[in-house]
């Protein structure tokens, strides 16, 4: 009889759950939530004139018995590109495994994750899709300094009862589950990150890592980040340094990169955004130093619908460009 009551209670919780909201996914039951997202952007400048339908993705996740849970995400990106400069177009409708993992929760302090997951470093990398970002573009820091994903195992949790100090330890000793979606191809990656919530508005974090690329580079990484989020202001910054041992050229190099981004919410739907980023790479074949300034505008009729525009000023003016985008999370 008790189990019947419990069943009715859980059933009622679905019946009376808050109605579907855009960006919250569609809950079929406790074991299956469905979601999807896409982004459409147009970039124009001396070096680029391109329309792109990017990130056509679906995700499913849920809770399983015995403290297990899972997430699976398939994505086709870029789904369609029209390059007006070259007069070419390209379509990619094949879905690839963006994320695919199983979690096991032993306690708040000790959780395990197995599979392909987002590398738990900083803020930007953990919210990589257009709709969750406040700008159209990603900083060079987030694209060039460490692999965005790990295919391996992760241990994570909170180190205190208050849930202020969070840690992640992760390791990979294999190829990526799906090599199509990894910014830096590697077959070995270990790292650790820690975050501390100073208050509801301020948190800080740091990470270290080491990875070995397909191109025979051994890379050591150190990263630091902090965020101040107190409506209407949001200020965040992330910086990293990598030391690169190139085993083919038998040479050493380094990268330094990071950004400082500020946002002012004019009201809950409209915001002004500005970012300064710096990226320096001393590798002989890619030697470069970039200063990039961005000013942008963000309009969110709902939080899960993002319409943004920005202009990028690059230290190499040939790369200056304007970008507008529309992105939605279902």
């Amino acid at each position, binding site marked *: 009889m*008790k189990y019947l*009551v*419990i069943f009715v*209670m*859980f059933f*009622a*919780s*679905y*019946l*009376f*759950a*808050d109605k579907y*909201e855009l*960006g*919250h*996914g569609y*809950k079929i039951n*406790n074991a299956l*939530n469905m*979601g999807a*997202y896409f982004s459409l952007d147009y970039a124009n400048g001396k070096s680029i004139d391109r329309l792109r339908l990017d990130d056509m993705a679906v*995700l499913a*996740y*849920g*809770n399983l018995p015995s*403290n297990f*849970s*899972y*997430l699976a995400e398939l994505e086709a990106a870029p789904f369609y590109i029209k390059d007006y400069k070259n007069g070419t177009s390209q379509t990619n409708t094949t879905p690839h495994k963006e994320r695919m993992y199983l979690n096991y*929760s032993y*306690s*708040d302090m000790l959780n395990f994750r197995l599979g392909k997951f987002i590398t738990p470093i900083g803020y930007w990398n*953990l*919210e990589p*899709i257009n709709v*969750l970002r406040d700008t159209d573009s990603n900083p060079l820091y987030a694209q060039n300094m460490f692999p965005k994903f790990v295919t391996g195992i992760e241990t994570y949790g*909170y180190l205190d*009862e*208050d*849930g202020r100090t969070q840690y992640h330890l992760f390791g990979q000793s294999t190829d990526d589950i799906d090599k199509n979606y990894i910014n830096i191809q590697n077959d070995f990656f270990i790292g650790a990150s820690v975050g501390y919530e100073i208050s*509801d508005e301020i948190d800080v974090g740091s990470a270290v890592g080491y990875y070995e690329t397909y191109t025979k580079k051994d890379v050591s990484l150190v990263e630091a980040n902090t965020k101040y989020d107190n*409506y209407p202001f949001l200020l965040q910054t992330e910086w990293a340094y990598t030391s690169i041992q190139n085993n083919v050229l038998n040479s050493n190099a380094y990268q330094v990169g990071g950004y400082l981004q500020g946002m002012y919410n004019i009201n*809950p739907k409209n915001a002004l955004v500005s970012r300064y980023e710096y990226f320096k790479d001393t590798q002989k074949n890619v030697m470069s130093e970039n200063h990039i300034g961005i000013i942008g505008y963000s309009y969110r009729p709902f*939080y*899960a619908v993002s319409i943004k525009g920005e202009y990028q000023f690059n230290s190499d003016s040939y790369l200056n460009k304007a970008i507008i985008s529309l992105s939605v*999370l279902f």
Partner: protein
Amino acid sequence: MSVKILIFILVLNINSFASEYAVIMNTHVKVKNLSAKEIKNIFLMKKHFVNDIKLIPVNSAASLEIRARFEKNILHKNRRKLNKYWVKKHFQGIQPPVVQASMNAVKLFVKNVDGAIGYIPMKLLDSNVKVLYEF
């Protein structure tokens, strides 16, 4: 006469500052109390265990006044902030707490489901549930 008025005003003030709502679990759980920060983390799905018991937080319906009070006093977030929070959690594969339509339904859920934790008005309290925090 003025002393009586003063006492009356004092009693009125005491009543106005008394807690109206309670965070509850069922009586089988060997937990005496929780801090506001712990409760916040439970309902933001950051904290999942108390004394090795897997927690199931239960929200009241969004339209009820108690939900707004809970969000303001315990979660310290308004609806706009919470919506942003749960959109981001959706991408991370984390669901918000289950919802019950009425405060009596919350109490019944907490009474019958081990690990369930909810909040109800003080006037609905009975011996089947244990108070862990008042607000």
